[in-house]
């Protein structure tokens, strides 16, 4: 690929200069970022998703970033009511939704106000002039009309009366109210972008027909609007240039565009099927974790039991109860809800039952910013319980990886009889990427669960020699009645014990059990030179930004490599060695240095923090700046 071929990275000397928009007729682009922004009521999420899916089917590589308000329906036309959806599509591999948009579609003044600062000069700007009336301008806090005051100069502006054009396109439709007509304007806009980037309409047509099966008049209205938008561009003088983004040279296979939470839910079900043990998901709704519950609630034909508990404590304890019963108990929440589970997670540690704990992290502390992403719950996962209660901690690094890591969490939990933390975040949860689907069960790792049924020589806290796991015995098994609980247990028998040495031994065993998982943790791989000036470490959703930056840095000839942790406890066994091979190590995280703390403690290496808590993923250029600073 040539960076210079993209809109975003076009022509300019490097990442830190704003790229210049190509104005001349140009047919082929490598990569484009488009952002749809409008009022929450304007349907921007659906518009963005449609653009994404159409591009996916075309074979582009993709990454998306939805950004919506905390309010359900913030007052129309206001700044907090703005909802956005950014799609990055490309003919080469991409790893983030893009730092900044090349194209901004803004459906009202508020959307313009919130998003314009991200649009580079020369970027394409599509506006609905109908929305720029006095009232809306005031709501958005504009003193003067940007359409008139010259402040939009320098952008490639397409100021179009989208609303009235949509209405006009539907003027002969007596079966629709005026409001119903104007509500189709997002599909008018979508049609325009389809023309602009030369996408077919079929995909969305099918979608609309399916979605409005019961109300076909809405399907056809939206389709008409979309076609009208497409046709308008085709006909209009204003639009002289049309762009092509060729399919990416992707690995052959079947793909699906998937959001992190959906992949996560599928991963759990897949592991459950593979292991032959149904799952029980105890959860309490919370943004951005709720959609895992919503997804799993639909899989009843897989025997998935979902339980909307009265609170997070009941969610986790009900899951522990299910695990006691021989199902795999899973619980999921976000930061504040996870905080409530701490006591029960201590219990799970003590009774040594399998449990998967999902934290779809959001910006904290406290309620924080529920719709914004962050990675600041790592140390909570490690230490948010009383006493010495170590747990394995895993983190997926992309929406699709949520499938794999959820599977892995299930596998470790059942194999080692231990509660396992899975740290996703809001960015992975709602972000989407094309995901290559497994074609057969053999592509999934083995995951065998066996219950002990032989009472001979059985002790509740006897241990597997390799894993140190205690046997899992389902109530109902004759002759193996036993009792567990949160008081320290005597080695072997599991009886209550206040014995001094026993407590030390059991504490050591619980730690050792987690430590032994290292045998299964794949060695950390580096992307880039095997040794050199700088290693950039990360975990979780920062993968894409770091990876994209890495590719640019490598082109710039930097001696820098990337290593990304998906296992945070225990660490891969070669981690220390890897770190030693570089003169400097940066740890990039969306927190104030949590993994960094763990690394410094463990390896006594002066790891440098690249930290950000702004409710948003890293931008590629932020990583690049840091690389620049620390390499020669």
């Amino acid at each position, binding site marked *: 690929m040539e960076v210079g071929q993209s809109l975003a990275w076009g022509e300019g000397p490097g990442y830190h200069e704003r790229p210049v928009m190509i104005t001349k007729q140009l047919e082929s682009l490598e990569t484009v970022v488009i952002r749809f922004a409008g009022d929450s009521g304007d349907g921007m999420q659906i518009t963005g998703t449609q653009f994404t899916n159409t591009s996916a089917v075309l*074979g582009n590589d993709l990454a998306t970033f939805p950004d919506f308000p905390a309010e359900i329906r913030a007052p129309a036309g206001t700044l907090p009511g703005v909802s956005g959806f950014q799609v990055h599509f490309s003919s080469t591999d991409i790893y983030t939704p893009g730092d900044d948009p090349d194209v901004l579609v803004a459906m009202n003044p508020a959307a313009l106000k919130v998003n314009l600062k991200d649009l580079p000069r020369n970027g394409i700007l599509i506006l609905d002039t109908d929305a720029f009336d006095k009232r809306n301008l005031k709501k958005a806090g504009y003193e003067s009309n940007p359409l008139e005051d010259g402040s939009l100069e320098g952008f490639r502006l397409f100021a179009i009366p989208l609303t009235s054009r949509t209405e006009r396109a539907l003027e002969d439709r007596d079966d629709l109210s005026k409001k119903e007509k104007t509500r189709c304007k997002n599909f008018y806009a979508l049609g325009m972008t389809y023309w602009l980037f030369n996408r077919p309409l079929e995909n969305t047509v099918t979608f609309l027909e399916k979605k409005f099966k019961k109300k076909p008049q809405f399907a056809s209205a939206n389709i008409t609007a979309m076609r009208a938008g497409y046709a308008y561009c085709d006909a209009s003088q204003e639009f002289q240039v049309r762009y092509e983004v060729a399919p990416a040279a992707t690995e052959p296979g079947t793909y699906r565009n998937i959001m992190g939470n959906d992949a996560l839910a599928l991963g759990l*079900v897949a592991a459950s099927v593979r292991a032959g043990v149904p799952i029980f998901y105890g959860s309490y709704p919370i943004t951005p974790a709720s959609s895992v519950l919503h997804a799993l609630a639909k899989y009843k*034909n897989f*025997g998935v039991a979902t*339980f909307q508990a009265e609170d997070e404590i009941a969610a986790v304890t009900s899951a522990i*109860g299910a695990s006691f019963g021989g199902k795999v108990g899973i619980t999921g929440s976000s930061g504040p809800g996870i905080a409530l589970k701490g006591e029960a997670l201590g219990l799970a540690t003590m009774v040594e039952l399998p449990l998967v704990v999902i934290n779809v992290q959001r910006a904290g502390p406290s309620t924080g910013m529920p719709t914004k992403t962050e990675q600041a719950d790592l140390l909570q996962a490690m230490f948010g319980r009383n006493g010495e209660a170590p747990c394995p901690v895993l983190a997926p690094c992309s929406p699709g990886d949520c499938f794999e890591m959820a599977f892995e969490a299930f596998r470790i939990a059942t194999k080692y009889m231990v509660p396992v933390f899975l740290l996703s975040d809001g960015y992975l949860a709602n972000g989407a990427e094309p995901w290559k689907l497994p074609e*057969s069960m053999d592509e999934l790792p083995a995951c065998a669960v066996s219950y002990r049924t032989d009472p001979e020589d059985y002790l509740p806290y006897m241990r597997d020699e390799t894993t140190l796991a205690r046997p899992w015995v389902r*109530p109902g098994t004759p002759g193996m009645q036993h009792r567990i609980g949160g008081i320290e247990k005597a080695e072997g028998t599991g009886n209550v014990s206040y014995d001094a040495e026993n407590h030390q031994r059991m504490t050591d065993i619980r730690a050792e059990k987690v430590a032994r998982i290292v045998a299964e943790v794949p060695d950390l791989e580096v992307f880039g030179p095997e040794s050199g000036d700088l290693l950039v470490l990360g975990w979780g959703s920062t993968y894409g930004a770091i990876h994209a930056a890495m590719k640019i840095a490598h082109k710039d000839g930097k001696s820098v490599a990337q290593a990304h942790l998906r296992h945070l406890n225990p660490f891969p066994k070669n981690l220390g060695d890897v770190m030693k091979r570089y003169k400097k190590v940066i740890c990039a995280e969306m927190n104030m240095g949590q993994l960094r703390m763990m690394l410094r403690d463990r390896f006594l290496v002066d790891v440098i923090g690249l930290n950000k808590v702004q409710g948003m993923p890293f931008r590629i250029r932020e990583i690049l700046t840091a690389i620049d600073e620390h390499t020669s």
Partner: protein
Amino acid sequence: MTTQPPQLKKKDFESDQQVRWCPGCGDYAILSSVQKTFAELGLRNEEVAVISGIGCAARFPYYVNSYGFHTIHGRAPALATGLKIARPDLSVWVVGGDGDMLSIGGNHLLHALRRNIDINIMCFDNRIYGLTKGQASPTSEFGKRTATTPMGSLDRPVNPISVALAAEGTFVARTADVFAPHLQAMLTAAAAHKGVAFIQILQNCIIFNDRAFAHVTDREAKNERVLYLEHGAPMIFGKEKDKGIRLVGNKPEVVRLGEDGITEKDILVHDETDESLAYMLSRLDPKDFPTPLGIFRRAGAPSLHEGYQAQFEQAKSKDGEGVILDLIHSGDVWDVK
């Protein structure tokens, strides 16, 4: 419940763990009644799961030869709910004290009741925190002096029966530690009930709140000041069966049979299905009324785990048994060649 193997005896339900309550604690009597009832119900050791919170009462599972889980303070009903959904075949019994279930665990109790999950909840009510050495509990009397309330408690007590009824409990009963046959009858009825069963068991804490229920369990009280509720029977009480409860308007009063021409026909008849009646009975003030023991309410309602089973089956019959590869490959997929 299979009947082929020989029926078990009480002692088969005794575990090998030494019982560690204070000598004279009411918990001993309850343990013994429960073990006896399990045997008489024909339960097998392995099909019973006893789940408890934390407190003196909550040590219970250690002493029963069955599957057991001594969980954390207040959360037993929630944990048991997960267990029962996962394992409808088990006979699940929940044990906890008044503090465990009505203070920290009040909400889980409420929700277990409204969900009508088929578990049997025994609340050992001694009106005190035993294990932590004598603090006020949610059922402690107003004005009671305890370690935390040296000048008297300012909290008004909750009434566990009223709360259980209002939480939509489908089986709500009261009994006492020392009334073994009555206690066993309640346990047996609870086991037979499809859906959640809540039993308040008045229990004496000899160390921190001795004789809290003397007004019920003393020999004289037991004969004269206890109203044994029976469905369809008039509310007559007293050793001589000479007293009864009558309704005037919607208000209850104690009357003497034979006096003022009052006969059995004037006496209120207990109806386990009448929730407002049950509530009224739960409010009877022991100063003026006998204390009702027995089943306040028993009513049918869909039970939670049955709902789960039905939805599983419905989903399977509608969408077919789940095939994971199909699920993964559903939605907007495309092929790259």
